C-alpha cells in the first residue's frame, strides 16, 4: 500500500488556502445551530427594534430606515464572534499539532476561518436586508452607493473577524474565547447604531462618537439612505484599516507564541 512520493517543497500556498477555506466552510455549514443563530438573531433584533421600540424612538414610523445599517453591523459582529470560538477550538483539540508538523504554512488554518466568516456574514447580511425590505426599509442608494456600502461592510467584517481570530488564538479555550467575544459585542450598542448619539449623556457621547463603529454605521447609513456622511467615511476606513492591521499582526505573533510555549 505504500506509494512512495518524495516531497521536496512546501505545498503550494494557494492549495493550502483553498483546502482550509473549504474545510472552514464545511464546518460552518454543518454547525447549523451557530449558523441559524448568526442569521436569526439579527433578524429578530431588527424586528424587535422596528416594531417594539421603533414607535417610541421615532413616532413617524421611519425608524426602520435608521436602524437597518446598525443591525447590519450588529449581525456582522455576531457572525465574526464565532471565529474566536472556531480558532480556539482548533488550537486546543490537537489538530493544530498535526498541521504544524506538516510542510505547510499552518497559519492558513486561520485564513480559512476568516474567509468562512466573511461568507457567513455576507449571507446573513443579505437575509437581514431582505427582511428589512419586507418590513418597510426604503434605501435611496444607487448601484454605486450599494457597492460602496458593500465594500464598507466587507472591510468591517474582515476587521472584526481577524480581531476575533486573534482573541481565539490568545485565549486558552473555546468557552473563554466566546466570553471575550461577548464583551466586544456591546460596542454597537454604545454607538449611533440604535439612537443618535446626541440623545446620550455627554460623557457617553464622547465614547460613542469616538469609537470605530459609529463612523462605520454613519457611512453605511449615508450610503444607503442618503443621510450626511461628512468625514465619517475616512474615519471608518482609517479605523478599520488600523484595527485590521493590528489584528493580523497580533494573530501572527499569537500563533508563533502558542507554538513555542507548549
Amino acid at each position: 500500500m505504500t506509494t512512495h512520493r518524495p516531497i521536496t517543497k512546501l505545498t503550494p500556498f494557494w492549495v493550502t488556502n483553498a483546502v482550509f477555506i473549504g474545510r472552514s466552510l464545511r464546518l460552518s455549514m454543518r454547525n447549523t445551530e451557530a449558523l441559524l443563530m448568526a442569521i436569526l438573531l439579527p433578524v429578530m433584533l431588527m424586528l424587535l427594534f422596528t416594531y417594539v421600540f421603533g414607535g417610541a424612538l421615532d413616532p413617524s414610523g421611519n425608524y426602520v430606515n435608521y436602524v437597518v445599517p446598525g443591525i447590519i453591523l450588529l449581525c456582522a459582529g455576531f457572525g465574526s464572534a464565532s471565529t474566536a470560538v472556531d480558532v480556539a477550538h482548533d488550537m486546543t483539540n490537537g489538530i493544530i499539532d498535526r498541521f504544524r508538523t506538516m510542510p505547510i504554512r499552518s497559519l492558513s488554518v486561520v485564513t480559512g476561518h476568516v474567509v468562512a466568516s466573511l461568507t457567513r456574514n455576507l449571507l446573513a447580511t443579505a437575509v437581514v436586508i431582505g427582511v428589512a425590505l419586507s418590513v418597510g426599509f426604503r434605501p435611496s442608494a444607487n448601484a454605486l452607493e450599494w457597492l460602496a456600502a458593500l465594500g464598507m461592510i466587507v472591510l468591517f467584517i474582515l476587521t472584526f473577524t481577524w480581531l476575533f481570530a486573534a482573541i481565539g488564538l490568545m485565549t486558552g479555550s473555546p468557552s473563554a474565547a466566546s466570553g471575550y467575544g461577548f464583551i466586544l459585542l456591546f460596542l454597537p450598542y454604545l454607538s449611533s447604531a440604535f439612537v443618535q448619539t446626541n440623545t446620550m449623556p455627554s460623557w457617553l457621547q464622547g465614547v460613542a462618537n469616538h469609537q470605530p463603529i459609529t463612523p462605520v454605521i454613519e457611512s453605511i447609513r449615508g450610503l444607503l439612505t442618503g443621510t450626511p456622511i461628512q468625514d465619517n467615511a475616512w474615519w471608518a476606513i482609517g479605523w478599520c484599516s488600523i484595527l485590521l492591521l493590528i489584528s493580523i499582526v497580533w494573530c501572527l505573533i499569537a500563533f508563533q507564541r502558542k507554538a513555542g510555549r507548549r
Partner: protein
Amino acid sequence: MSKPAIEVKGLRKKFGNHVVLNGIDLSVPSGTVYALLGPNGAGKTTLIHILSTLVAADEGSVRVSGYDVVTDKLQVKQSISLTGQFAAVDDALTGEENLRMICRLSGLTALESRVRADELLQHFDLTGAAKKRVKTYSGGMRRRLDLAISLVTSRPVLFLDEPTTGLDTISRRALWEIILQLKEQGITVFLTTQYLEEADQLADKISVIADGRIVATGTPGELKARLGGEVIELYNEDENLIEAFPTTGSIQDISRALNELILKVPQETKVRIRKPSMDDVFLALTAKKSTQELEGAFS
C-alpha cells in the same frame, strides 16, 4: 547499519522553573520500533513535541533523518508524521473528508487524494464508515483514522504519542498489528506508552523515562531481566499494603527476599506475590529500595 533515524544529545527543556527534560540522550536505528515508557508527567509528550519540531528545546541537539530540528525544520517535517495524544481529526467532517484534506495538504492532487483516501480507508477497515461524520466514531475507529491520516504520505519516521491510551483490548491489539506492519515496511516508529506490555509487544528497544531523565534503556528482554519478575507485597493485620518489594521472579530470589524480610517485619505480616506493574518498574529503577529502609516502615 546506516545513520540513525533519530539522534538526541543532551536535551533539556524547562517550562518556567519546572524542569521537564533533564538531559536526554538517545539514538533510534532506522526501521526499528522504539518505545518511550513512562508515567504521566515524565516528559514523554514534551520529548515528542521537540522531536517533531513543535517545541524548541533549551539545550541539546536533535537530528531526525539526519536533519536538525531547528535549522532544517522543513526537511524534518518532510520526514515525519505525528499522531498526537488526542486523535487530531475534525469531528464535523467525515472520515473520507478528513483523509482527503490531509492528502491535499500533503501535496497530492485531488485525484490522487481520492485514490489514496480510499486505499487507506480500506486498509484501516473504515470503508463502511467513510461517509459518516467522525463524531459518530468509536474510540478505536478514531484512532485508526488518526493513524491512517498519519500515513497519507509515507514518511520514514512516525511519532505516536500514547497510541492506545483509552482503547479496549481488541482495538489495542488491532493497532499493535498495524504498527508492526509499518515496521515491516521499513518505517521507524517512535512511540510513547504507559503500558509495559505494549512496549514489550512492539518495541525493539525501550527507554524508561521518569522525571525528565532516562533511567534505563534496553531490549524488552534486557529490561525485564533488570526489572525482575514477581513483586512481593507486604500487608499488615488490617490488610493495608505496607510495602511492595521487587524480585527477579526466580525461586531463589523470592526465597532470599522472604528470608531477609522475615527478620525485619512483624510475624503477622501477610504476603502476596504478583506480576510487576508500571509503578514497580519506576520504583525499581528510580528509588532502589533496600530491605534496610523497610524496617522504618513498620516501626
